[in-house]
């Protein structure tokens, strides 16, 4: 309940009390220390902790949050069910191998939930109701049981108050000295059924794995578009990133479930409405290759957000995936390729482009032109490769000076630090009369007294010889 109304309750020290029909429904640790406990009346709580923030319970927000968590959990298994009392049931039996065993998947689920700023406890067992009970037990005792026999031992020790079906008969059961599930199970079955009804017995059988349980699995929406309204106004991009992480975790779950991958991500940051109203800031993140992995996208978004300065405080954050493509199939090669797969390389390009800008990550895009400065074109490495022009068979220098540097002359010889000796040439380039960039040049390879090779040219259309340094041979 607190997660839905005040996401940072577990880290900040404010006293928060959630009220449901004038009764305290949940308290933060600070408020608990002041003496407020669940079940108190509103007036009583207000006297004990006058400085506490009183929040009204909102079932819609709680449901929305559970829904978002279910969406994020879809990346681990397609079988997610919403259970009573704010619980999610995950059938992970088919995913254990992929996520490296029960401990591995448990660690990843914890990590995802933490990224979504949810405070949750986990239980793991061979039956869904058993796991539900283990997750809800107090601070003590193990929460993971993957063998039926040891699950039974654990369940036998659990207090009866955990079983919702037994709450109606709690007083009667306490009266006959039955405090744990184990004690309840040892009672004669027929008599118990007659006195407390089939519901309790059924719940026990389901938890102990004696009869199967039917779940209504969660189905993901067809389009992903989520928006989070913030409680506080965010002024720094690092805070925006923390919230966006939550959205990305949900999106990743949705993508895995639908077997889709995104080629572009749009994060919109909405600003205050009113006097300082301004349109939402849109942050587009184009990707070099389709991606769906939450960690990769979160990393990219962090680099991107670090470069952005917010013009106004943000009050809401939305995430959209305008177009999705089929998720690419996993490489089936037996041995790992040296240097990683093409997807690894694409991830590198994405990462570099997110921080430096897509224009700073370039690949050759040589044009078929005789003028070196026109032929030397580079384009961004993000996106599709262009067909290359046929390679020139004349060796060109590795470095080009842009623009060419005018050289002085010394005793009729070009001079750059020391007099240059022409060692090869001329190569005559005369082209570009049709587009205004007329080049009438004689190119020479020249050497200075330190034996460094330069590529210089002399403009031919002037009476006075003008020399330019255009390149260096690497």
């Amino acid at each position, binding site marked *: 309940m607190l997660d839905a109304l005040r996401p940072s309750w577990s880290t900040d020290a404010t006293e928060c009390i959630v009220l449901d029909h004038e009764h305290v429904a949940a308290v933060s640790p600070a408020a608990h220390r002041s003496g407020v406990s669940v079940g108190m009346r509103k007036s009583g709580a207000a006297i004990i902790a006058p400085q506490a923030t009183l929040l009204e319970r909102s079932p819609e927000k709680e449901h929305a949050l559970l829904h978002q968590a279910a969406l994020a959990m879809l990346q681990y298994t397609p079988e997610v069910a919403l259970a009573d009392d704010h619980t999610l049931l995950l059938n992970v039996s088919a995913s254990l191998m992929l996520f490296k065993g029960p401990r591995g998947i448990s660690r990843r689920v914890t990590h995802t939930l933490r990224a979504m700023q949810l405070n949750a406890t986990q239980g793991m067992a061979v039956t869904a109701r058993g796991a539900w009970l283990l997750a809800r037990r107090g601070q003590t005792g193990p929460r993971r049981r993957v063998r039926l026999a040891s699950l039974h031992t654990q369940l036998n020790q659990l207090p009866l108050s955990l079983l919702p079906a037994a709450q109606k008969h709690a007083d009667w059961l306490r009266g006959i000295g039955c405090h744990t599930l184990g004690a309840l199970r040892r009672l004669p079955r027929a008599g118990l059924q007659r006195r407390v009804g089939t519901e309790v017995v059924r719940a026990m059988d389901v938890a102990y794995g004696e009869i199967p349980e039917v779940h209504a699995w969660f189905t993901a929406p067809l389009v992903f578009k989520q928006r989070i309204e913030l409680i506080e106004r965010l002024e720094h991009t690092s805070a925006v990133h923390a919230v966006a992480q939550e959205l990305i975790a949900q999106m990743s779950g949705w993508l895995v479930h639908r077997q889709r991958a995104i080629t572009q991500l749009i994060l919109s940051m909405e600003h205050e409405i009113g006097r300082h109203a301004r349109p939402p800031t849109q942050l587009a993140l184009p990707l070099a290759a389709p991606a769906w992995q939450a960690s990769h996208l979160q990393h990219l978004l962090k680099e991107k957000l670090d470069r952005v300065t917010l013009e106004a405080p943000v009050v809401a954050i939305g995430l959209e995936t305008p177009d999705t493509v089929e998720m690419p199939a996993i490489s089936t090669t037996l041995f790992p390729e040296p240097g990683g797969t093409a997807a690894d390389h694409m991830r590198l390009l994405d990462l570099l482009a997110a921080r430096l800008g897509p224009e700073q990550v370039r*690949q050759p895009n040589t044009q078929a032109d005789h003028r070196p400065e026109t032929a*030397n074109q580079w384009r961004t490495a993000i996106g599709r490769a262009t067909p290359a*022009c046929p390679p*020139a068979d004349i060796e060109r220098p*590795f*470095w080009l000076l842009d623009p060419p540097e005018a050289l002085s002359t010394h005793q009729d010889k070009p001079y750059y630090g020391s007099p240059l000796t022409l060692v090869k040439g001329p190569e005559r380039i005369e082209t570009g009369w049709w587009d205004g960039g007329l080049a009438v040049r004689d190119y020479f*390879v020249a050497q200075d007294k330190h034996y460094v090779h330069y590529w210089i040219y002399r403009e031919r259309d002037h009476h006075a010889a003008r020399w330019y340094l255009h390149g260096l*041979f690497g």
Partner: protein
Amino acid sequence: MTLPPDQLHPSLWRANQLARNPGPCQPSGFPSLDAELPGGGWPVGTLIELFAAQAGVGELRLLAPALAQLSLHRPVALVHPPYTPNSAYCTGAHTPRRPWLWIAPERPIDALWAAEQVLKNGSCAALLFWQKDVRPASLRRLHLAAQSSDMLFFLLRPQAAMRQTSPAPLRIHLQAAACGIELDIVKRRGPSMNHVLFIDLPTPAPHIVHHAPLDRRTPAPARAGRPAPVLVN
């Protein structure tokens, strides 16, 4: 029976030998240079520092044979080059066809970050990184990142940086010479080199009639404590 120390462990070597187990190496394409490098080539996954007074002393012609032997599907990354690289060189008929990547960060700190990311990712075949001022801590970081990859990693720095300390196991000073390049191996895993190594490089202009250089400078003059090199025939 006592073993000689150089047979105790593969990582031990005598001060007058080259290191015996420096890890995987890529032949440089010049037998005389390979003979002077521990492992017989450019070490892979190691920070290699090259110092030159200016760009254009022949560094690319020196590295080209080694780069040509690397997988042609993996790109060669150029990070923060001092001038504009010529795409006509990269796609020309004299260079093997392979992808190239030019990363042009605006700030030096971004350049260091980009180089580290390229090394960590490991999808490129080689990384050439030009940087003027690198702090020793950053060098160590780059060297560590390089060790986790199988890439050839050259850091090209100005001559003045040669006097700074560095964790790089191989540091070479390059100087242009007539019809070639002179290499002075400043640091290597092995004995210090008493002479300057001359490597005959193809001239950038292939149509010149190639004569054997007659005006080559004599090797480094004998200094105190160093044996005089054998005269060139």
